């Protein structure tokens, strides 16, 4: 495990200790459950988005995809929510594939392409919702998803954790996973050495859209309602979670484990600050500070610490 990762784990533990000593209720089962519920939403979106970042691309459309995923689930799943989920997932696969197609076929920056799909999806969400909040009286699936399991988990948070595990195994132990990382750092070299650039891009954009749609779909069942404005600030939070976790904007570095740590750092911080009575704007401010701190830490302290480690290792081996 790299120095940077260890630093992040240390930060996460330090945050937990500070909040727990400030208010012991922070480590109560019910509060950890509340924390994991927030993580269930943010983590899933951040995970999908971070895979595109690792592949050196970006998916700005995840926020709108959360809204569309939720709305499609409720609108088409009026009589059968499982059917609604399938429609939402199928739609996400199509959008992910379309994003990847334009990016790889026409060699357009994914930032530009996904700004387009973000706006189109947002428009589609408003059309689906028809200016209203879509709600359902079918609360049972939501209750089943949110019921506490072993006090601190729920199906919703376990699904997110399982997604992290699957993504971790995929990126670490498959050839495609390796390709995704390689095309993120050195695309031309990767292509020359036989990495499947086009296919990798399809996979990451589809996973990104699918994770966002799934987050929206599960959320809409949990809230028994969906609105076109849902998820509007999720994209920025997800980018923050990925960066805080150590995924580079330039691509090539980072892993699902890093995103897991990044998402947990943000959720722990938000939950703890809220418990201390800080308002939404204060928490946003704190998020910004941590993000900037982490980026600086990566550049300065990270380099300094790596040097020290290298120096001490050299001394020992001499």
């Amino acid at each position, binding site marked *: 495990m790299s120095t940077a990762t260890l630093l992040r784990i240390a930060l996460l533990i330090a945050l937990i200790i500070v909040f727990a000593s400030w208010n012991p*209720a922070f480590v*109560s*089962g*019910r*509060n950890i*459950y*509340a*924390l994991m*519920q*927030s993580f269930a*939403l943010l983590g899933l979106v951040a995970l999908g988005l971070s895979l595109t970042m690792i592949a050196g691309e970006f998916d700005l459309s995840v926020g709108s995809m959360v809204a569309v995923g939720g709305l499609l689930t409720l609108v088409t799943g009026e009589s059968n929510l499982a059917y609604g989920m399938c429609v939402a997932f199928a739609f996400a696969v199509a959008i992910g594939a379309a994003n990847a197609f334009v990016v790889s076929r026409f060699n357009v920056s994914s930032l530009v392409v996904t700004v387009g799909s973000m706006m189109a999806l947002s428009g589609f969400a408003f059309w689906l919702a*028809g*200016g*209203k*909040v879509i*709600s359902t009286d079918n*609360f049972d699936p*939501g*209750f089943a998803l*949110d019921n506490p399991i072993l006090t601190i988990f729920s199906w919703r948070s376990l699904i997110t954790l399982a997604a992290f595990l699957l993504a971790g195994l995929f990126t670490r132990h498959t050839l495609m996973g390796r390709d995704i990382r390689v095309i993120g750092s050195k695309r031309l070299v990767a292509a020359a050495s036989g990495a499947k650039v086009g296919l990798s891009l399809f996979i990451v954009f589809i996973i990104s859209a699918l994770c966002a749609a799934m987050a929206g779909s599960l*959320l809409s069942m*949990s*809230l*028994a*309602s969906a*609105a076109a*404005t*849902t*998820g509007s*600030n999720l994209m920025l939070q997800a980018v923050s979670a990925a960066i805080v976790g150590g995924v580079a904007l330039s691509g090539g570095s980072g892993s699902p484990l890093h995103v897991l740590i990044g998402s947990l750092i943000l959720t722990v911080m938000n*939950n703890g600050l*809220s*418990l201390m*009575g800080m*308002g*939404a*704007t204060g928490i946003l401010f704190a998020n910004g500070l941590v993000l900037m701190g982490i980026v600086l830490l990566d550049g300065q302290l990270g380099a300094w610490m790596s040097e020290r480690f290298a120096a001490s290792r050299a001394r020992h081996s001499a």
Partner: protein
Amino acid sequence: MNFSKLTKLALATTAFMGLAMPDMAFAGAKGSKVILLTVTEECEYCALHQRAFKEVASAAGVDVDVKITNYDAAEQASQVDQAIAQNPAAIVLWPADASAIVPSLRKIKQAGIPLVITNSKPDDKYADYWSVFTGPSDLGNGQSAGEAMIKGFAEKKFGTEGKIVIVEGVPGTPPQIARSKGLEDVLGEKAKGIVVAGKQNGNWDQTKATDAAAALFTQVGPDVKGVYAQADNMMSGVIVAAKRAGIDPASLVLVGSNCSIEGVNQIKDGTQYATVLQSPIDDGKYAANAVVDLLDGKKVEKEIYLPHEIITKANVSDCDAAIGR
């Protein structure tokens, strides 16, 4: 377990209950912890509501903990989870979304925490989930607007007959539906001659309301004698549209709503006839009083609505006081 042990246990339990029961039933507001979950720090109405709530609750000795979301239903759901974890004496909740909050209300009910809903009432079919609702009634707001319209017709010597038009909020939202219904109910009952000749959506937005009113003035023509705009900011748009159409706004019966700063200024300079008062300060106070009474073990009505006073030039100072200006 032998008999004597059982007896001792029974005695101990009874003694404990004897001590604890009255304490639980009349926990008392003083020293209790109450969590207020509210919507944003950025809207003036919300800020005044929060301030008034805190003032009244603190004066009663309640320890208030506030959690704020920016109208984010998902965030509010996790704040509810966190609030339950803190096990407060009561929760006061301003729903970020009246539909999406319902599953969370059930969780609060299951945790056995008394709940006061403030400002936005979810569908009545879930009324079992909360102890008290306090806040505005959109139906009452519309009814007051109807009364104001009739009064305006009389004052401007239009008698009891003529055409009016309505500029509505976002279609399908509860205030849009209920405010129009309230107005139409009152007109239907007390002034059948005053007829609603057209409606357009202004979406609570001044620019959109200007276009909506322009369309209505073209459609209904110079016969229009009155306009009901469901919010004062939309009335500003109506006034612009009237001037562009060559109609003197002061010659019409213009009835707005909410007592917002635009409305007050327009009433003071004589372009707008009336508005309907919905005081954010009362809104916050009502919620605080309800939770204090609830904790003190007093009987509290299930629904407590704000008064919807009609404001004209004669009593416009009431508006200023209610908004805390």
